């Protein structure tokens, strides 16, 4: 609760400070202080010091896993705003508002990591997505940004409509929005109704919800919006959207199905002919296929990263297939690995003049530090051992193997991981083994370089000791 309320308050504070504070340099400091306070408040709540405890009538439930996810999301946001602060200031005139919107997005993510009611799922998703439509169109005079914003808005609200219809149908089938009832007769909750037998309305509703969530996490076959929008929006906000926001949508996705599996055996029984796990496997394989194969043919690195984010979403979906403890741990590792690497790559990309592959030619000569950091980020994304990306993929595959019976999905995953190495290494190749000069659009400060190296070191250190992250989940 701490994090939800404080993030909303800090959003309002940023909004008001943009109206009252004239000094544009002050905004990022206020935002950073706010983020750090948010982090502290959330950690306090993890160790049972919830100051702001408001009765939510079981609509929200704060588990250790959700709170720890919040911590990671805030930490990634701090990294993001520290690393790309100059770029955020360059997007437009409304710097205070950008930070305010980022706080509101975080508020939505916190709701999504702790909801226990379909109403909260809906509200969380909306609080998370509506500010993003604005951030996507933040470059008001840039047609590409405008177009991306309109497309994102239309696609996003379309998927919201589908999700809402799904929720309405599930409500019709079960008579309740709550996922779990505490201290009540279990037979009145959705889980109880599921235990008996899913009605037709239920199944239809769950499939619509699944569709809507697939839209939000850009899983195939509903991934088509992602590349255009990631390409069109300002690079800073692309990195925010592709990492932290996507992780938030994933948490919501996993939470919905994990709670249902915990309470019932719904996912194990094939109910009226719909075998859910088979459905998930098909979605995973399709996402991996589209993401990886199209990423190979991209010439623009920004667009390649957009497609690769679809491919990475495919890997994160493995946790949906297995839904056991390993999968949850793996998801946290994946969020960290993927977010840190992608934030780093986009942060450096935003400084460059030429976004194409040729633009990276000879980076190792002119900017050895940045090239080194870039290389580490790319190695982590492709899952090379000794980086955190390797362990993230390892945990995901391990979780699937533990479930049993879906060996073939794991094998397909390994094959696509190998394919992904190809397009990530193309960038490394052009940085280190091609001649050329890298032109930067904006100067690179010393602090920026240090931060880039620190992020690379985080990736390597966590790659050596992945337990560091997971230990906090239990202690």
């Amino acid at each position, binding site marked *: 609760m701490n994090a939800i309320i404080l993030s909303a308050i800090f959003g309002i504070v940023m909004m008001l400070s943009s109206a009252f504070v004239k000094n544009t340099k002050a905004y990022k400091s206020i935002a950073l202080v706010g983020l750090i306070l948010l982090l502290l408040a959330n950690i306090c709540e993890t160790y049972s010091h919830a100051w702001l405890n408001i009765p939510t009538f079981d609509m929200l439930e704060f588990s250790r896993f959700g709170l720890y996810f919040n911590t990671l999301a805030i930490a990634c946001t701090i990294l993001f705003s520290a690393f790309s602060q100059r770029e955020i200031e360059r997007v437009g005139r409304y710097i205070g508002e950008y930070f305010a919107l980022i706080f509101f997005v975080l508020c939505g993510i916190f709701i999504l990591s702790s909801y226990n009611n379909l109403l909260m799922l809906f509200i969380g998703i909306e609080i998370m997505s509506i500010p993003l439509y604005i951030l996507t169109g933040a470059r008001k005079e840039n047609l590409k940004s405008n177009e991306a914003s309109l497309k994102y808005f239309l696609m996003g609200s379309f998927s919201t409509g589908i999700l809402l*219809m799904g929720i309405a149908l599930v409500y019709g089938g079960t008579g309740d929005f709550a996922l779990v009832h505490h201290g*009540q007769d279990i037979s009145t909750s959705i889980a109880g109704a599921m235990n008996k037998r899913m009605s037709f309305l239920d199944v239809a509703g769950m499939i619509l919800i699944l569709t809507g969530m697939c839209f939000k996490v850009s899983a195939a076959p509903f991934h088509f919006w992602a590349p255009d929008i990631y390409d069109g929006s300002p690079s800073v906000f692309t990195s925010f959207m592709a990492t932290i926001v996507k992780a938030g949508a994933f948490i919501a996705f996993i939470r919905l199905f994990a709670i249902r599996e915990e309470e019932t055996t719904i996912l194990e029984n094939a109910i009226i002919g719909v075998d859910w796990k088979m459905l998930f496997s098909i979605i995973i394989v399709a996402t991996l296929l589209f993401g990886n194969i199209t990423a190979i043919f991209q010439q623009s690195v920004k667009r390649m990263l957009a497609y690769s984010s679809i491919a990475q979403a495919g890997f994160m979906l493995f946790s949906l297939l297995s839904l056991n403890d390993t999968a949850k741990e793996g998801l946290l590792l994946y969020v960290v690995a993927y977010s840190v690497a992608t934030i780093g790559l986009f942060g450096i990309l935003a400084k460059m003049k030429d976004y194409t592959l040729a633009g990276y030619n000879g980076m190792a000569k002119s900017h050895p530090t940045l090239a080194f950091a870039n290389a580490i980020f790319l190695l982590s994304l492709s899952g090379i051992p000794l980086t955190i990306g390797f362990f993230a993929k390892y945990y995901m595959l391990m979780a699937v193997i533990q479930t049993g019976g879906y060996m073939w999905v794991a094998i397909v995953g390994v094959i696509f991981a190998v394919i992904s190495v190809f397009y990530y290494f193309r960038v490394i190749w052009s940085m280190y083994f091609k001649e050329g000069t890298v032109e930067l659009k904006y100067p690179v400060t010393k602090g920026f370089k240090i931060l880039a190296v620190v992020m690379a070191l985080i990736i390597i250190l966590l790659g050596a000791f992945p337990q560091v992250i997971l230990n906090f989940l239990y202690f």
Partner: protein
Amino acid sequence: MPIQYYIALAVTLFSIGVVGVLIRRNAIIVFMCIELMLNAANLLLVAFSKTHPATSVAPLAGIDGQLFVFFVMVVAAAEVSVGLAIIVMLYRNTHSVDVDFLNRLKN
């Protein structure tokens, strides 16, 4: 009236909305179709709230469906304001609200 009638009506409205989003090219009309989808779901929620009356075990059953509709309406209003702002911003730059006109990103 049986609940099936309401379901049929809501599903029809929803389908009209989906088809409209997929085939219309004017951003404002696409937007109206999305609103139609949301309102079809609202209708269904209210209809279902009458078929799940309150019991001693679940005293709030039925009411929550109607409350959900309030939240959906408010969220829809927020979406309307953001969406219209985006469309106006686009119109100022291109003098068009045609979705097909926007194909600069595909290259």
